[in-house]
């Protein structure tokens, strides 16, 4: 072996602490080291060329860099090896900056000693490196977008327009997400459904986009380029190919079969047969088995029978002009499983707002204490009051409305983060109230108004000018008075005194959080959740739409609170990132995966039970003489090495982190030849 050791000064970041001369002399004395050089900046073009030339001239057949952490410049140094025609994996980095010169700068002598050990450790591992090559896979050029809100729709359209096949999976019967519930959106106060409806129609009719609504992700296998996804489509009892969305079935469904309407945030009712919203895309009826009262004692999922000599049809079946409803199909709670081959996944599952019931101090039992999303429905022309501002309790016009901000956000008891959009949407709602009914008194209780962003501060100033009372200070509680009025026990921080306001309607800006089922989804996908409870991006600044797993991207409010424009920006970024990865025909991955030796494998299967990715399976011999051995799937193995360390026969190896390589590193730290125990 001819190892080249290249020691970096990193300006003086390393050389101030580590005695470079001593380190070089030490490296020269190591077995198998043919060349030792130093450079002021090993990450410079000149140093790169120096390394490349050493390899080309045959002086060096493996490279040890003593510099900063491999996270920094590993790729850069690999490229020098590649340019010289050597396997780029014949490289080992001794981290003598982040893990030596910087944290040990006050003990220079010992830092030099540690640097020597780190270099020796790297050299001894380098001796055992193998000229690996990248593993390449063919790539499935289709994308799964999970979540059909504005983020998912945007990403799907972008990818569809770029020519990729897209599957858009939405758990509700209709796409559109939360945005369809809004009346108007800031800062232009333009109609929300006018923004989203054309996009919903486009996504439904796009030739490359397949909409799978009323469906959830069952499980995900495989990895980037080749995911195998199983989607569970819930049973509706309505043949969507025949349903024309006329709504006839919804009008005959008896009113005793009703539940609070999800689209109206519980402010109205819907029946068991329903079309989720007036904007619904696809506009199809859905049967809710939990609500159905089984008209005429015809239980859904049971066989047809004759009544009065005729085949009995339930009212909904009878009403349907196209015969799309068949309540006699066997009820299958599992629904239908659709299997998809997917190259990359975008998760855009959005958010939920906290329930008002959590906040006992804000009189949640009063029907006139509502969340901002409920108020959004009251403001909307498609809502329960058809856009008239009325109290839910008696459908009368309120004389005064209070908005309370930071309910559950910026509060150590619930969420420490700021939900970001509440200030602006409260200003918007207050403004819409003033525009519709100027005589209603509007109070906003805020800790402070946060309106950064284009045109948003101006929006705030304009709103103030409409005569809205903005009171800076947190609200301690709400009392329900005998006449049903609500007394706000607030505080005015500007004048430093408690204030009390009596109003008829209270709107709570409850915190945005990750939906409960999104956590389950994250677990199925294997992506992480951050400390504030949202999906975690790979890097807070550089890789904001990538998850920690290759080929899985995140966009929109499931990554953190965002307004519509930011969600769209992130969805477009995610779509572009996916497209960039899939542009080539092949995907290249590092060859650091497990390898099972057929000779040594005893077929015990311990590794199979421990593999986090089900990448291992028992292969039965073709005849009785052939023994059972474990096979590893190249595509699903992620190279964690759990199987390697668990194999009782030592039959599994892990390229790049093999037993002998790690043993050599251990031995090098002690200056002895490693012996396996």
């Amino acid at each position: 072996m001819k190892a080249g050791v290249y020691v970096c000064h990193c300006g003086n970041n390393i050389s101030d602490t580590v005695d470079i001369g001593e380190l070089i002399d030490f490296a020269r004395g190591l077995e198998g080291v043919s060349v030792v050089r130093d450079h002021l900046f090993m990450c410079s073009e000149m140093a790169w060329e120096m390394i490349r030339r050493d390899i080309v001239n045959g002086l060096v057949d493996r490279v040890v860099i003593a510099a900063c952490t491999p996270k920094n410049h590993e790729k850069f140094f690999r490229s020098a090896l590649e340019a010289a025609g050597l396997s780029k994996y014949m490289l080992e980095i001794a981290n003598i900056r982040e893990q030596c010169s910087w944290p040990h700068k006050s003990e220079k002598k010992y830092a030099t000693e540690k640097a020597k050990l780190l270099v020796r450790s790297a050299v001894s591992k380098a001796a055992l490196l193998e000229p690996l090559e990248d593993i390449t896979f063919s790539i499935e050029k289709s994308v799964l977008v999970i979540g059909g809100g504005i983020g998912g729709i945007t990403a799907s359209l972008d990818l569809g327009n770029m020519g990729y096949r897209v599957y858009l999976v939405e758990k509700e019967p209709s796409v559109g997400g939360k945005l369809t519930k809004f009346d108007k959106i800031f800062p232009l106060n333009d109609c929300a459904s006018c923004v989203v409806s054309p996009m919903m129609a486009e996504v439904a009719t796009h030739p490359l986009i397949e909409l799978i609504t009323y469906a959830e992700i069952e499980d995900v296998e495989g990895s980037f380029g080749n995911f195998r996804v199983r989607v569970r489509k819930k049973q509706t009892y309505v043949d969507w190919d025949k349903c024309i969305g006329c709504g006839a079935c919804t009008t005959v469904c008896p009113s005793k079969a009703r539940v609070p309407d999800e689209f109206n945030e519980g402010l109205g009712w819907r029946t068991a047969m329903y079309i989720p919203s007036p904007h619904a895309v696809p506009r199809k009826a859905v049967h809710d088995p939990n609500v159905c009262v089984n008209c005429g004692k015809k239980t859904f999922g049971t066989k047809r029978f004759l009544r009065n000599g005729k085949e009995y049809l339930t009212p909904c079946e009878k009403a349907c002009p196209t015969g799309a409803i068949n309540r006699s199909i066997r009820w299958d709670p599992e629904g239908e499983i659709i299997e998809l081959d997917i190259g990359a996944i975008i998760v855009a599952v959005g958010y939920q707002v906290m329930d008002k019931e959590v906040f006992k101090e804000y009189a949640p039992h009063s029907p006139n204490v509502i969340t901002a999303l409920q108020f959004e429905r009251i403001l909307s022309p498609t809502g329960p009051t058809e856009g008239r501002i009325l109290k839910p309790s008696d459908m009368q016009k309120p004389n005064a409305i209070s908005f309370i901000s930071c309910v559950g956000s910026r509060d150590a008891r619930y969420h420490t983060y700021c939900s970001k959009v509440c200030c602006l949407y409260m200003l918007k709602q207050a403004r819409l109230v003033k525009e519709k009914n100027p005589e209603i008194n509007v109070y906003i209780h805020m800790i402070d108004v946060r309106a950064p962003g284009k045109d948003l501060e101006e929006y705030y100033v304009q709103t103030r000018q409409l005569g809205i009372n903005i009171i800076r200070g947190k609200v301690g509680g709400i009392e329900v008075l005998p006449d049903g009025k609500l007394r706000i026990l607030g505080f005015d921080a500007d004048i430093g005194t408690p204030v009390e306001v009596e109003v008829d309607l209270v709107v709570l800006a409850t915190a945005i959080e990750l939906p409960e089922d999104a956590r389950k989804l994250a677990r199925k996908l294997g992506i992480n959740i951050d400390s504030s409870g949202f999906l975690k991006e790979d890097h807070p600044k550089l890789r904001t739409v990538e998850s920690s797993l290759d080929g899985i991207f995140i966009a929109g409010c499931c990554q953190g609170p965002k307004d519509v424009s930011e969600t769209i920006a992130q969805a477009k970024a995610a779509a572009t990132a996916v497209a960039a990865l899939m542009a080539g025909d092949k995907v290249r991955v590092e060859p650091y995966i497990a390898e099972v030796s057929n000779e040594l494998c005893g077929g015990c299967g311990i590794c199979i039970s421990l593999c986090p990715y089900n990448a291992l399976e028992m292969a039965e011999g073709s005849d009785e003489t052939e023994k059972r051995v474990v096979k590893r799937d190249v595509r699903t193995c992620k190279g964690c090495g759990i199987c390697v360390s668990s194999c009782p026969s030592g039959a599994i190896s892990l390229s790049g982190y093999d037993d002998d390589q790690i043993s050599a590193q251990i031995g090098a730290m002690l200056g002895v030849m490693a012996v396996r125990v």
Partner: protein
Amino acid sequence: MSDEFRPNIIGFACQWCAYQSADLAGTLKYEYPSTIKLIRVPCSGRVDSAFVLEALALGVDGVFVAGCPEAECHYRFGNRIAKIRTAMLRNILPEFGIESARLRFEHVSSSDAVKFVEFAKEFDKQIRKLGPTPLRGDKHE
């Protein structure tokens, strides 16, 4: 060199969390004892019991295995396996005449440089208190 005992400590650090927390500690110029030397592994679950025994048999004074925070393992549950393994090893170490306290498992998040540094200092102190490994023979430099 003074006669004061300087322990030799090896830490197996997972590349996603523990190794990165040490990198971050360096970047932030937090100091911790230079007796601590890390070996990078893909996952703490990669750390074979044999590596730990090997290191101790060769005369290392202290060994630790550091992985991702509980329930946040990059490989789903490798850290849990590592934790169980170290716990079992700690049980059998006294049979070889080695104090259990010479082996530790620690959860460190990639963003928690403070925890890494505190752990490093504390473990170094603990090993100093225990003194040189009973297995330390002439093999040591």
